């Protein structure tokens, strides 16, 4: 369950934890003032009216994601139902389904000649053409995810939420639980939040888990199938590996003034267990840049991540500007900066148009190696997702309010990745080790 929080506002229609009851009315005039402000706010709220008591509200989305070339294509559908009670108790259930297909970069370097690789399962081979980035074309999976959450107020100004998460695909299972407490202060202008989450993941790939930095055997190097299978099995470790995550979240949401709201989150996550990608490779090259072996990657078994997330929302009348910045730091040597801007423009018709911009930069992991030469480090990965990288996303969303709480929306977004890194010796000098990736996302949403 994704945890999120909000300040204690008198009204919202979006799912989230409960708003602690405001029992701080000290006199009738204050109560009348709140009532009058609610009346004033009514025209704005008409676009996304809150669900009435004991009613379900559903939010559905369908995403089509496609990368340029023969890379990954994905289709994801989700439906979330939120049952809000009159006493601020909230039940949330969500079902997500996605299907992925296409090819993903293995991490092996391109060459000036065709290269042959053993499939991750050990059953068969695939060939990459000269000058092309090696891609594993067996990338195919379907996934089902279920999230459930319960949130309720307690005391005068506090609330709690609990959640459970399950994600299952062919070779991967993720289970998680989460819980959070929130407390409002100063006329509900300040909300403090403490959250904890734990996840237990397990991976069981076909062909079992490769041993760290083991050399991939090729069928052509062995006289018969039996000798090859024996060599392949010698590179295999356990059939199944595990990864556990424990996370702490601290947050504060502050109403700044009549039109400005700020949120600051700090999170600390400790991940332990198997964190390598069993499908990724690191090439070993000679002084001329020729690949002489392919090694399975090896990542540390512990990772500690810290993140600061700062979000500001400003109301300018028809436009509402949301800006967010995230700094993430981990002990793998990765620092990342993310800036997001969303400008929600309400048109006279009540429709909204929202341009969205996201800029992201990360430094490379300490053990990122685009290739190996003489050295044999303990950890090495050529996964471009651990390389230095800059990405940006430009998107637009259009939302049309329908009757009642119903609305329909369409979104298009263009995503570009530019990984960077050192060049290679010899023949690698003229080859593109860090290909740019472009992706298009189309999303349809319907709320009822």
């Amino acid at each position, binding site marked *: 369950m994704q945890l999120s929080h909000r300040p204690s506002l008198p009204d919202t229609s979006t799912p989230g934890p409960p708003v602690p009851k405001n029992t701080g009315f000290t006199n009738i005039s204050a109560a009348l003032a709140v009532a009058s402000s609610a009346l004033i706010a009514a025209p704005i709220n008409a676009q996304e009216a809150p669900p009435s008591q004991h009613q379900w509200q559903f939010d559905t989305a369908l995403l089509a994601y496609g990368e340029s070339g023969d890379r990954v294509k994905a289709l994801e559908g989700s439906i979330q139902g939120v049952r809000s009670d009159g006493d601020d108790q909230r039940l949330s259930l969500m079902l997500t389904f996605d299907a992925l297909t296409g090819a993903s970069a293995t991490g092996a370097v391109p060459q000036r000649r065709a290269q042959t690789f053993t499939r991750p399962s050990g059953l068969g081979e695939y060939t990459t053409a000269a000058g092309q980035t090696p891609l594993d074309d067996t990338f195919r999976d379907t996934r089902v995810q279920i999230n459930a959450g319960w949130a309720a107020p307690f005391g005068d100004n506090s609330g709690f939420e609990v959640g459970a998460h399950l994600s299952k695909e062919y070779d991967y299972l993720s289970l998680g639980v989460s819980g959070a407490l929130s407390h409002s202060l100063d006329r509900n202008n300040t909300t403090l939040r403490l959250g904890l989450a734990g996840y237990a993941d397990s991976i069981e790939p076909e062909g079992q888990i490769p041993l760290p930095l083991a050399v991939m055997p090729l069928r052509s190097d062995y006289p018969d199938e039996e000798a090859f299978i024996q060599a392949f099995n010698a590179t295999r470790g356990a059939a199944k590996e595990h990864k556990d995550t424990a996370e702490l979240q601290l947050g504060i949401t502050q109403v700044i003034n009549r039109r400005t709201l700020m949120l600051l989150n700090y999170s600390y996550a400790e991940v332990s267990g198997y964190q390598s990608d069993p499908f990724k490779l690191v090439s070993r090259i000679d002084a001329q840049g020729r690949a002489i072996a392919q090694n399975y990657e090896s990542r540390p078994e512990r990772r500690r991540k810290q993140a600061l997330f700062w979000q500001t929302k400003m109301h300018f009348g028809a436009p509402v500007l949301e800006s967010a910045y995230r700094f993430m730091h981990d002990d793998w040597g990765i620092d990342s900066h993310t800036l997001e801007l969303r400008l929600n423009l309400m048109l006279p018709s009540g429709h909204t148009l929202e341009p969205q911009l996201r800029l992201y930069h*990360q430094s490379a992991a300490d053990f990122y190696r685009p290739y190996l030469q003489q050295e044999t480090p303990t950890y090495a990965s050529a996964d471009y997702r651990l390389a230095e990288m800059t990405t940006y996303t430009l998107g637009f969303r259009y939302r049309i309010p329908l009757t009642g709480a119903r609305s329909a929306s369409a979104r298009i977004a263009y995503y570009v990745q530019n990984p960077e890194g050192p060049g290679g010796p010899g023949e690698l000098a003229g080859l593109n080790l860090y290909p740019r990736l472009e992706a298009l996302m189309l999303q349809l949403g319907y709320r009822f």
Partner: protein
Amino acid sequence: MTRPIWQCRWAHRLLLLTVVGLSGCGTLGVEPWQREKLADPRMAPESDATDKRVDDHVYFSKEASSGGRGSAGGGCGCN
């Protein structure tokens, strides 16, 4: 080597920016009858949660960072 976030240069800058930003606002907060604009559903911090969840899943599988807005852990075998 692990470096606590409070020793990071960027964390210092962010904290400084926050303090300066908040102190420039004078008295923080509003009275209950001054929440007209804050009551707009577009002002809820987690508005458009579905869009953001979909985005976060894409970025989680394509980049090395996750979390911040919500939980960073768990998920799927896509990363």
